């Protein structure tokens, strides 16, 4: 078991830390969005707990050696959530956090979508939806060919599962039995124009991936204990079925006015609203309003 079991003091401390870092992701997302003038708040908020659990518990990496060949790889296929990833990379030591003060400005290394040539800690550039799982298949094959034991984690949005290339990659991952490939779907139920199920249904998602030969896990994507439990459950054999974690999340989670609201896919908080939202995030996750989340 990789992470301390429930009920231990170590687990309690870890959860506290992850909760704090998820909050940090949301706060930084709000700060950086103000610098840019617009940003993807809600797609990042739905992934905040997942990103925190990955970077402070699950992934193996060396901030002082970004190119360490045996590091685990993380591919953010939903590249528009990079605004939440950059602060984590800075926080764990890949680069100075002050570099983010020029986020999206002319000649900045940090844009809406991550660039591996410019940013230490980004394992692969992304932004064009539907590519990341194929890239991750290639990374997993790269590990196999070179007899390395690292894993590759690929976070996808649920909207991007409408891209056909995802399913080409799903086939290949199964065909090549890439047990070291872990897909994570941030199942926040909303793409830009509405609920995935009314726009272009991806359900039954678990059954679809299972029928492609994947081992599928379901988890509440805002429950850090549950996320760590799933990470503990993942098979470690490098040759075996690829694994998918479907993380049920709420788009915009942590800021009530944004939860389950497609209007906030791209937005900008100004004036008192900005301060209100900062205060709300500081207070931590509150129970969901019934019916607030779409789906």
């Amino acid at each position, binding site marked *: 078991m990789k992470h301390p079991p429930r009920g231990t003091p170590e687990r309690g401390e870890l959860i506290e830390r992850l909760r704090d870092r998820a909050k940090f992701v949301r706060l930084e997302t709000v700060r950086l969005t103000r610098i840019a003038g617009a940003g993807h708040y809600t797609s990042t908020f739905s992934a905040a707990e997942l990103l925190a659990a990955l970077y402070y518990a699950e992934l193996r990496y060396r901030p002082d050696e970004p190119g360490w*060949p045996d590091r685990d*790889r993380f*591919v953010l296929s939903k590249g528009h959530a990079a605004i939440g990833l950059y602060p984590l990379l800075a926080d764990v030591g890949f680069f100075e956090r002050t570099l983010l003060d020029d986020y999206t400005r002319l000649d900045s290394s940090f844009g809406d979508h991550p*660039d*591996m*040539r410019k940013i230490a800690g980004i*394992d*692969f*550039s992304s*932004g*064009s939806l539907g*590519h990341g799982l*194929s*890239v*991750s*298949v*290639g*990374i*997993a*094959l*790269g*590990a196999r*060919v*070179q007899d*390395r034991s690292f894993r590759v984690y690929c976070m996808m949005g649920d909207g991007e599962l409408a891209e056909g*290339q995802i399913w*080409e*990659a799903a*086939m*290949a991952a199964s*065909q*090549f039995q890439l047990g070291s490939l872990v897909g994570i779907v941030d199942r926040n139920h909303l793409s830009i124009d509405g609920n995935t199920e009314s726009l272009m249904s991806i359900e039954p998602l678990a059954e679809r991936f299972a029928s492609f030969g994947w081992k599928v896990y379901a988890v509440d994507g805002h429950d850090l204990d549950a996320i760590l439990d799933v990470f503990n459950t993942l098979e470690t054999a490098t040759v075996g079925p690829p694994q998918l974690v479907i993380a049920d999340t709420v788009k915009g989670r942590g800021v009530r006015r944004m939860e389950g609201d497609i209007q906030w896919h791209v937005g900008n908080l100004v004036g008192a609203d900005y301060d209100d939202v900062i205060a709300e995030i500081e207070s931590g996750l509150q129970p969901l309003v019934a019916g607030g989340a779409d789906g």
Partner: protein
Amino acid sequence: MADVTREGTAGQEISDVFRGSTPRPDSPKDEGTGKGIEAKSIPAFVAGEALADLADSDPRIVVLTADLAHANRTVDFAARHPDRFFNVGVAEQNMVSIAAGMASTGLVPYAATFAAYLALLACEQLRTDCAYTAMPVRLLAHHSGMSLGYYGTSHHALEDIAITRAIADLTVVCAADANQLRAILQRSLDWPGAMYVRLGRGRDPEVYSEVPDDFQIGRAVRLREGADLTIIATGSEVRACLDAADSLAAQGIHARVVDMHTVDPLDREEILAAADETGAVLTVEEHNVSGGLGSAVAETLAEAGVGVVFRRHGVPGEHVVLGPPAALYNRYRLDAAGVQSVARDLIGLEGKRHDV
């Protein structure tokens, strides 16, 4: 051009694509022999075998294809390095992105399939996952141009030079024959960033009698000297242009022939020298005239302020008619006889304004 393929062997020729082992029957060398495919020894697709040789001493090399292992002879690589060969099925976009992911772990992937599906179908994966990221992915884009004959436009790649040379940080090289391809593969091992390698049918008539040791990416090769005009050709048209130059020479017209194998980065000096020293430039490519080698040369001449008799020769702006490859080369004047006649036209215009 002998018309042996028009009825009798055209179907054979096309079906051979998927076996990849039988020499093309319509090589200019076969002309007049009446013996068809047994007349000459013409090399089969060498990429698989050449990469297998290189991979014996370079553990970074991996090879991918999309259900065309026999057509492009990557099966020859698979036989010798089965653990480094990946056939992804009919999924070209997936193949290109997978290759990019592999490259990010330190490998040098060679991904081979029909040019139409690398440059057009997987264009965005090529740009975003390979070029933008500067991954050392090598795309082996075979059966480019209209070499798939009566398969028709769906299988032709007459736009791929235009597309790929518009992509930043992507090197574009066109192989004239098997020996030059061997040299390209050798040089590609440590070439920075992504590379698009445009290939013919793998049975292309010989241009280089041996692997050119002095081959350099980005440095054109002057194959014939001549003072009356320069023919700048690339890839599958180089042989036809040499043969055209031979015919012209017999008529007292001396054409310089330049193999512009690398379209990006372009050898500007060789182009400007051609204009300066021969006064007339004809570009020849198995590609639409819009956006390809001819356009690249025209841009170079115009921006240098050079006035010169000039013509781009290739496929005019149309989806080509149906026919076997040799018949198409004949129709579009892209065989030796056609190039010769176009060159003569151009020379006839020398010293006059070209107002057509």
